[in-house]
């Protein structure tokens, strides 16, 4: 668990291997999974999620989008979400990378990787982090459509996805 810090000397919370990155650059989920696994031979399960830009949304074509965020609060919010997941499940590593700036359809937006001894915890913590990221992390999407620019509205289903973790 501590070993992986030597491979990924990134922003850490609570002295653990929690890492959060907010960046314009793309990321490579395969490389991150390999780095995490190499660092800790007690890991048996790595669940991950990648969100990508879709070419249409809410019935309209989308040629590109720009992600605005709140520098400082963004990192803080993501770290808080990851810390909650670590309190709740027995995970070794959790990494969140979220991009900002202009992205096109097919581009990667966000990556969450969670490593644990067994798959149940890894899946649960990964989905938990994504659900709360969708409602708690200060990012806003502005889409370029044939009808012009438009800000994406928050989805009610995202609130429901985050709510359900409070009752289990």
């Amino acid at each position: 668990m501590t070993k992986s810090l030597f491979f990924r000397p990134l922003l850490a919370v609570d002295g653990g291997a929690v890492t959060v990155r907010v960046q314009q650059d793309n990321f490579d989920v395969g490389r991150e999974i390999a780095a995490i696994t190499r660092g800790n031979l007690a890991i048996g399960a790595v669940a991950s999620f990648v969100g990508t830009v879709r070419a249409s949304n809410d019935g309209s074509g989308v040629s590109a989008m720009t992600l605005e965020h709140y520098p400082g609060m963004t990192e803080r919010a993501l770290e808080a979400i990851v810390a909650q997941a670590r309190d709740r499940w027995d995970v070794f590593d959790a990494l969140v990378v979220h991009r900002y700036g202009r992205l096109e359809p097919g581009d990667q937006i966000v990556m969450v990787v969670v490593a644990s001894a067994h798959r149940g915890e890894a899946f649960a913590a990964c989905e938990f982090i994504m659900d709360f990221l969708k409602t708690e992390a200060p990012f806003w999407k502005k889409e370029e459509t044939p009808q012009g620019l438009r800000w994406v509205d928050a989805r009610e289903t995202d609130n429901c996805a985050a709510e359900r973790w409070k009752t289990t």
Partner: protein
Amino acid sequence: MVIRILYFASLRESVGQEAEELVLPEGIDTVGKLRSHIAARGAQWDAFAVGKTLRAAVNQRMAPADTALGEGDEVAFFPPVTGG
């Protein structure tokens, strides 16, 4: 009491600015009261009106309406988030 206010996303566009310093009038000591105070500025600030969906953060933490304000606080207003 002086605070710094930030506006993001569609809200930033509708109010026509991204940040300001504000000397809080007497009695404006919570996020909710600040919101009402800003709403009273006029039509350009309609997004702050009662019933409009708006989120706030104080010192980079999500903050409900009853959150107290203090000297030098960074207060941010923005629409519900849509990242991920």
